């Protein structure tokens, strides 16, 4: 593992209207790593992703991308750095066609020149999207929407992709497929931040992991270590 982290989050604090979602959280992601962050509802996982993406403005703390503090940068500048996300709830442009969604994902300066090639790549990855390229995104099934959200993120040629609960609302088989895609992207040397409630699956594919509870990091370690951790098993299954 290279020594220099790609992204470092340092004592990040995020709050909304008096309540704290993240309380002095510190994590780091190394290049080409697949990092899992697990935690229950309300643990602050989404807040973490959104503040890295610049959509939520942190109250305190630093977010360093290759050593530069990007906390407080507007989201479009952060995307331009190569940070993309597959958001919770997908946040697609429902009235726009599949292809338009992809085009928008690929319209950042960093990737615009190679946009048409990238679209073909996405279609190669998800043939279902090619079949439905002119259909409005809102009419797709849940799994297809998730594919589109991933495809849209890939279009930006990101160095880091953040997944926010990609398995939510998907059937077990689709969930497995989703994790396969994550693994595949990882294999292509994309750095990945995977935030999940699905503890077992996400920790088992992650190089390292953090356990988030009520806005705090309570555990960290390699995926395998966490997976066998008594604390994790007790907390998540009462075993």
């Amino acid at each position, binding site marked *: 593992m290279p020594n220099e982290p790609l992204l470092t989050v340092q004592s990040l604090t995020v709050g909304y209207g008096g309540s704290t979602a993240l309380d002095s959280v510190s994590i780091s992601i190394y290049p080409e790593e697949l990092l899992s962050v697990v935690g229950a509802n309300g643990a602050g996982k989404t807040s973490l992703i959104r503040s890295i993406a610049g959509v939520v403005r942190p109250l305190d703390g630093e977010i360093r991308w290759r050593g530069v503090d990007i906390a407080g940068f507007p989201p479009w500048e952060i995307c331009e750095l190569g940070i993309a996300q597959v958001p919770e709830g997908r946040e697609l442009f429902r009235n726009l066609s599949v292809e338009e969604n992809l085009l928008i994902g690929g319209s950042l300066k960093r990737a615009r020149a190679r946009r048409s090639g990238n679209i073909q790549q996405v279609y190669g990855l998800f043939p279902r999207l090619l079949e439905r390229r002119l259909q409005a995104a809102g009419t797709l099934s849940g799994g297809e929407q998730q594919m589109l959200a991933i495809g849209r993120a890939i279009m930006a040629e990101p160095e880091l992709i953040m997944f926010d609960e990609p398995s939510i609302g998907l059937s077990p088989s689709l969930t497995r497929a989703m994790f396969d895609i994550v693994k595949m992207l990882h294999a292509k040397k994309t750095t990945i931040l995977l935030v999940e409630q699905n503890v077992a699956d996400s920790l*088992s594919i992650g190089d390292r992991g953090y356990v988030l509870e*009520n806005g705090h990091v309570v555990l960290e370690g390699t995926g395998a270590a966490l997976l066998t951790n008594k604390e994790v098993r007790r907390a998540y299954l009462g075993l």
Partner: protein
Amino acid sequence: MTDLLELDGVSRRFGGLLAVDNVSFRLKGEGITALVGPNGAGKTTCFNLIAGALPPTQGSIRFGGEIISGFPAEDICRLGIGRTFQVVRPMRDMTVLENVMIGAFSWTRKVSEARDAAREALDMVGLGPKAEAGISRLTLPDRKMLETAKALSTRPRLLLLDEVMAGLRPPEAAAVVAVLRRLAERGLSILLVEHVMRIVMEAAEHVIVLHHGAKIAEGTPRYIVSHPEVVAGYLGEAFRA
């Protein structure tokens, strides 16, 4: 004796998604029942169907023998079903006490009566000392208990609690479980949506498991954790071993 709550083949569809798929179960008069399942399993939707926030697409829901499916939320509340929301929704510019009074106004119009009932409800969940405080001063566990107190002040026979313990630390959660026990001893029936199995194991007498909108298992907590499908649905394939 008729059951307190009876769901019979209840389904709810959102566009292409079948969020609740032909779910049936019964609740007896008292005690704590837990509704568990992974995220997106349809637990909250199920709550919304019972509480009238949404009408079911199919099936019927009976409360005390009477059909209530399709009734508006306020009428169902007035019939004796109190509910909390997963995301706490306090009225921001009211004090804690005033927030709880709203629930009491479902059965009285006298401000003083509502105030007394609200105090009682707050005492019951241990928020009595903070009655006059503003909402912004409450901690997360306090807020969860405020939600419970609000629901309690409507004087329900059945209490629907949606993840009241999510995000709480173990000692805090234990305190909440104690409160729930106390309420159940008073004859209240509680239906609990919960994520953390540890808590379910401690608190509930009966567990219903939902997965992808459908009921996959039902029984005592002991029975449930040993149920292979539950383990698979919950923790993923890796835990099956």
